[in-house]
């Protein structure tokens, strides 16, 4: 077999593995609250052709822009007809393209292989490539941005091509998440040593000011195109107005613990620390500026998001993606310094690391909605999938098909699961006529005193919503007795 054919086969196998991890059993996990809100935004856009962009709560429109054609091709046209698979296929495809993009981004053969293998098997990156949220899209668009930036720093023969790649990639990132400013900050800081060492700041800016202006222009053009239906000004307002939800403040070391600290849960060991060690080796010793840039950019990303009190696991995706690539450079360096005779030592070490990553990813998917899974964040419980049928049975037991009233806040992803349940109402507080209402869903945000008001009139059934946040189904006693008497 020729060398080029061997490479083609290896690329194919790697992509098959990455695809299998990202696409298998994609519809099994119950819909996460964030996925459900994303689906609702997409549905509004589908049904009305636009949606009201809320700069204080929404991320960019890119996720729904990409999911729109996928859902339409699956015959989905409304909230009622929406299915989970097309939503998740959109982001899983982004995750797979990120693996392919890594192969293109890293030029050195050994580093390229290793980096793509780390990205393909990283439990964090695989787990969040299977969730309909913005991060897989954000990571994907960072590839052209990084490719353009690195080409400019390396004084490419095609500076305009590099500038356009940087601008379009960054613009698409901006249309995905407002956290693009963190990436721009980290990349600027990481690029400074390179610029100072190889160009000098002033000569670099003098040489490339036109291309950099072009990159900014291309980025703004993408932002304008993406945001125009919702008002371009809202993109800029989001930086001033965006409000993070309460209850997500975590310790400084949250991300480092989640990714790099060895821990045991659900009968498995979890740790992606090997990536961090290899990336640190690249940061400290690697002769390749590209590797050092990615290592420092990845570390800076993790550092910046660690310094922000608001933390969710998926925010680490872009930083970790860059560290996986830096770890690829570290692997190539290990192979280089070990010499031909002792090359089997780093090869065995890297193979073990990849196998360990693969096992963790398999476990993360096996226990995909288990709250003990280090990557599962506020997962929805599986039993919620049985809730619509139960509520429909209750409604059938009543004569007049009564509405289901959801009381309290933080009820997502309930609206997704209640789509098939006739009339559903949402009230922030317990209404005065609650004792007369036949079917109530009481959210965990209500107080025990609210519940006590219904104890005499309703049968209270604890039911799962999210891990550690059970809700209560309150069924008026006469309806409950009628329901129980019905067979089966």
């Amino acid at each position: 077999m020729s060398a080029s054919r061997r490479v083609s086969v290896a690329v194919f196998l790697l992509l098959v593995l990455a695809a299998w991890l990202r696409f298998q059993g994609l519809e099994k996990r119950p819909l996460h609250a964030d996925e459900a809100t994303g689906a609702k935004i997409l549905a509004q856009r589908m049904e009305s052709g636009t949606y009201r962009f809320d700069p204080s709560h929404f991320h960019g429109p890119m996720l729904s822009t990409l999911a729109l054609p996928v859902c339409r091709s699956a015959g989905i046209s409304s909230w009622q007809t929406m299915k989970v698979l097309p939503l998740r296929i959109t982001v899983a495809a982004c995750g797979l393209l990120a693996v392919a993009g890594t192969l293109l981004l890293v030029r050195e053969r050994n580093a390229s292989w290793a980096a793509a293998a780390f990205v393909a098997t990283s439990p964090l990156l695989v787990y969040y490539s299977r969730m309909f949220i913005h991060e897989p899209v954000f990571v994907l668009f960072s590839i052209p941005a990084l490719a353009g930036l690195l080409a400019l720093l390396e004084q490419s023969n095609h500076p305009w091509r590099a500038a356009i790649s940087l601008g379009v990639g960054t613009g698409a990132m901006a249309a995905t998440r407002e956290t693009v400013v963190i990436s721009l900050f980290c990349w600027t800081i990481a690029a400074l040593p390179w610029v100072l060492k190889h160009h000098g700041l002033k000569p670099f800016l003098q040489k490339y000011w036109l291309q950099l202006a072009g990159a900014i222009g291309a980025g703004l053009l993408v932002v304008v195109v993406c945001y125009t239906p919702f008002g371009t000004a809202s993109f800029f307002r989001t930086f001033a107005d965006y409000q993070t939800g309460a209850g997500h403040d975590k310790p400084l070391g949250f991300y480092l613990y989640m990714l790099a600290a060895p821990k045991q849960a659900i009968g498995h060991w979890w740790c992606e620390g090997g990536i961090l060690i290899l990336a640190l080796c690249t940061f400290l010793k690697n002769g390749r500026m590209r590797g050092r840039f990615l290592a420092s950019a990845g570390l800076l990303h993790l550092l910046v998001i660690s310094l922000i009190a608001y933390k969710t696991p998926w925010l680490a995706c872009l930083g970790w993606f860059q560290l996986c690539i830096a770890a690829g450079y570290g692997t190539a360096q290990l192979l280089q310094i070990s010499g031909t005779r002792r090359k089997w030592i780093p090869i065995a070490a890297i193979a073990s690391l990849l196998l360990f990553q693969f096992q963790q990813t398999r476990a993360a998917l096996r226990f995909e909605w288990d709250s003990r899974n280090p990557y599962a964040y506020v997962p929805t419980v599986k039993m919620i999938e049985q809730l619509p049928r139960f509520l429909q049975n209750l409604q059938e037991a009543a004569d007049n098909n009564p509405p289901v009233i959801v009381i309290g806040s933080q009820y997502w992803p309930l609206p997704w699961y209640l789509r098939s349940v006739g009339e559903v109402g949402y009230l922030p507080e317990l209404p005065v006529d609650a004792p007369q209402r036949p079917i109530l869903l009481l959210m965990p945000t209500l107080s025990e005193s609210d519940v006590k008001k219904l104890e005499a009139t309703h049968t209270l059934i604890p039911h799962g919503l999210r891990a550690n946040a059970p809700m209560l189904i309150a069924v008026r006693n006469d309806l409950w007795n009628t329901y129980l008497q019905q067979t089966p």
Partner: protein
Amino acid sequence: MKPINTFVTAASFIACALLIGCDGSGTQETTEQKTASVVSGQKLLTTEIPPESLEGTPMPIKAPNLVAALKQAPALGVPEHTELLSRGKPVTGSDDFPIIGDLSLITDGDKEGGEGYFVELMNGLQWIQIDLEESANLQGIWIWHFHTQARAYNDVIVQVSDDPEFQTGVTTLFNNDFDNSAGFGKGSERPYVESRFGKLIDAKGTRARYVRLYSNGNSSSDMNHYIEVEVYGTRS
């Protein structure tokens, strides 16, 4: 980047790791038991109640338990010579390879809530079965599924029989499968929130050798857990 910057960045990450800690606190409460009227020739069924232990990472939303768990041990009047029959007795189950622990934990007498004290069975409808090794008049079955978090188990069904296959002579003592998802018929008993006081089921003197308990996940996850099951009865 200069070496000093390199080491400052690396050191800050190491410092982050050192800042991580898990909060875990446990409080002990005096065991209280509801007073119940006990008729002549009966005694109050008592057992050792495990201390409360709270653990787990704080969740992003504060979710108070809307249904108050028991604040005192349940009470049941039983005949004078009622004894614990299940301690150390063999346990079998539908899941031969539990994810955590093993089935013998269910009758080992230990009711602590942490890891090492409970057995975790696969998701879906699962059962465990205690062989008392001889028929007895069963008076009470006291169940602890999991009590370090407030959660309710689904489709809790308790059956007893002299047939190890549960094909004949099956008596259902408890069934809270309100939507018949387990397929044994709708149960009229109400789902309940687990607590350290356990769930005490009146066995009403039913004569049987085997006790089988079903469950189908819980309000926090779809796994099934047992810390301890105590079967009380009279041997005559």
